């Protein structure tokens, strides 16, 4: 799983690429740590390159969403492949995380 973060002020453009599963979830959590800081963050995640997310991945997205909410910011995930979107739908996570 590769992650690229471009930050300008409180706006973070995040590009996710690859498969997010138990083998790389710990590293992914460390990679998104900078997004857990700062006031009113605006996070946009481009998921066009993400091929799969496991439950571990969902937990990290959830943690990030809660952190963003607590700091008065917004987070959206976009350009999801149908396979990844299905994971969010069948777990009810589409009701928790904003997907556009």
């Amino acid at each position, binding site marked *: 799983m590769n992650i690229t973060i471009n930050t300008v002020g409180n706006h973070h453009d995040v590009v996710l690429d690859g498969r997010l599963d138990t083998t790389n979830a710990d590293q992914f959590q460390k990679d998104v740590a900078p997004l857990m800081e700062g006031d009113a963050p605006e996070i946009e995640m481009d998921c066009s390159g993400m091929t799969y997310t496991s*439950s571990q991945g969902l937990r990290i997205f959830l943690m990030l969403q809660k952190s963003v909410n607590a700091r008065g910011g917004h987070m959206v995930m976009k350009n999801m492949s*149908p396979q990844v*979107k299905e994971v969010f739908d069948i777990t009810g996570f*589409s*009701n928790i995380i*904003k*997907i556009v």
Partner: protein
Amino acid sequence: MQAFEKELDLHGRAILEEYRSLYPVYERLRELVPQFISRSLKEARVLVTALESRVKTESSLAGKLALKGGKYAGILDITDIVGARVITFYSADVDKIAALIQKIFEVDWENSVDKRKQHSLESFGYMSLHYVCRIRPSLYSDPDCPELNNIRFEVQMRTALQHVWANMYHDTGYKSGLEVPPEHLRTLNRLAGVLELADDEFSRVRAQINDYRRKVHSLVRDGNFDEVSLSGDSFKSYLTLDPFGSLTEKIAAINQAEVQNVSLMPYLSALRMLGCQTIGDVERLRLKYSDLAYRMTVHQIGQTDLDIISSSLALQNICIVCVVVRGGGVYELEKLFESVNGPSPYNATRAEALIAFIDKLKK
């Protein structure tokens, strides 16, 4: 010597001098009084629109002394040098706050006044409750500053509308220094009457809404679902019974999943869209579609190793199967998703896939 001071007699000037020497104590009182009030409001869970405090300015005090300085033997006789004001939303809250003020401070009843009761049946005008108070030593004391417990201050309590009227009156009449012509005074007093009526109406509406909420809550709690219209309040009460809890537990058991609790309130509009008009309709929908919703979920997540779900999943899938079983198509499902999660380019493809999936499941 300031210009305003020159207009005072010797007695007035002596009082003004006392004011200057006590000014640091007044400032401390100005800070302390709203702190005690604010803490008490918080504990009693009373919301107010504003809590403010001020120390009377030198020029304002001089103006008062020029008018009626002979009335005061010394500075301690003047009770409004430090003033706090609590502005409430509702007229009923003024009395509630008055009760809190009596609890916190020692009230000097002789000098306190309820302007609300000073009007005759035919007159309208300034409406505010003024308490003259002291800080009880049991509440706060500072051995280096005993004056903090001796100096009296004023607490004014009024509603936001009374506050607006008082400010307008002050601005147009009293402050200008000119007497207001009778016809304008009559207009101002008529406005006071209108605002008094509005204050009473706001309090009445609030009481009615609270009665309605209590009634709805008790009807829902007692299971009289058909008697309760579906609304934000009634749905919230219904959710306290955890009606989707058992299905959620069953779904979680499929993969021994962790359940992430989220609010189900976003589903209110979806349930209305599905034709639910009462809580009874929601309950029937739950009973009718829970089984198919469960079977659908087993097929969806049973083959995966996903072990975290949202607590909204049960209701989400009940709504989905309801739409499809009733013969709804892609459009209806798209509308359902949109009402819960907002518009998304994925909604149409998700709807198509689900219709095919549920149709197969029904067979």
